[in-house]
């Protein structure tokens, strides 16, 4: 029997009190342990010692008139006095000057004002594009390999982009293009100086040429 603080407790009560005290200490201690473990967790970090450089490529498409003497007219020199059956060939170098390969080259045109030259599929302007692996000569001869980039197509159909078939659109590739601009022979008949209705004679339009290409399909590299 203990006699403390003037309170007398039996043996059983004393044992119970001790157990409660121990349990309380255990709970508090456990909580402290758990709490301290949150703050004490270890962190490991691995950083590359040299910079992991990430850079992106570029996609760039440019056009320039041929530099071959005699065929430098390009798209900027006017074409005048065309008649049915006439063809004017202009020479353009189309360059993928970026660092990325490209796909799906296209051509579209816009004409102002719009008239029979660019609205008539049969009597209006026809465009044919050929590619040469080297510069065209001034006489319009390809001394390399010649391919058709665009089969004869009415200008009226080029208001929406038409696909071009080019041998290469890889980065740095240059397409040496011959742009054939023609008027079909037609069936117009002028009687006593009177032009027929719907004639393609005596018309003027200004054509803007737009080439497009798309970045090659994205790649996934394991390296």
């Amino acid at each position, binding site marked *: 029997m203990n006699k403390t603080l003037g309170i007398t407790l039996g043996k059983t009560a004393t044992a119970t009190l001790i157990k409660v005290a121990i349990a309380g200490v255990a709970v508090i201690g456990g909580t402290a342990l758990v709490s301290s473990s949150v703050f004490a967790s270890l962190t490991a970090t691995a950083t590359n010692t040299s910079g992991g450089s990430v850079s992106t490529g570029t996609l760039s*498409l440019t056009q320039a008139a041929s530099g071959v003497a005699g065929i430098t007219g390009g798209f900027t020199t006017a074409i005048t006095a065309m008649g049915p059956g006439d063809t004017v060939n202009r020479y353009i170098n189309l360059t993928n000057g970026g660092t990325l390969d490209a796909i799906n080259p296209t051509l579209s045109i816009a004409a102002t004002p719009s008239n029979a030259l660019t609205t008539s599929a049969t009597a209006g*302007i026809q465009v044919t594009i050929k590619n040469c692996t080297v510069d065209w000569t001034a006489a319009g001869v390809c001394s390399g390999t010649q391919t058709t980039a665009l089969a004869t197509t009415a200008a009226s159909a080029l208001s929406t982009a038409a696909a071009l078939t080019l041998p290469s659109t890889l980065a740095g590739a240059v397409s040496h293009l011959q742009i054939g601009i023609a008027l079909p022979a037609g069936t117009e008949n*002028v009687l*006593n100086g009177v032009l027929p209705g719907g004639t393609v004679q005596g018309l*003027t339009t200004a*054509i803007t040429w737009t080439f497009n290409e798309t970045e090659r399909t994205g790649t996934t590299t394991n390296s």
Partner: protein
Amino acid sequence: MFRSKRSALLGFCAALFSITPLAISPAVAAVKATSTSPSATSFSTGTFKAFATATQTFTNPLAALALSMAANTPKTFFIENGGTIDQTAITMTISLTANAAITNVRNCSRGVLFQTTTTCVGGVALTTNTATAGVAKVYTMSIPSNTWYQFELTATKNSTATISVAVASTQIATFTQNS
């Protein structure tokens, strides 16, 4: 299929999130390069017009030429290219009233006048053509823009000649130019 509306909604949202990126991201990611001509190409067409006139003026009459003919008396007229495109031939139809017939149709060289009814200035050779009244006849001759030929018509009777001139798109000089 779904136990409740909530399950259906959750299923729909899950499907939306899983499909949408697949459908859209490739289009968004595609990079395009464009090259537009530095300036527009000015394009113009010419005209091919030929007509008959009594005098050489290059004034387009926009009509056939009517000539008053005296029997067996040659009368001259001009065929002119008043367009901007060179011609390689014309089609001429000469009709005569009073049941008259064409005796002959003569012409001098391009830009050369008749000196007499049977000679050309400078002794240039004269060409004699056969033609039938009312029947179209093709005259193959080079007629560059703004040039002319002088013709001479003789009919068998006093009559009125109506001279029509046509140029087809197959009767013009064409070219292929590399420039």
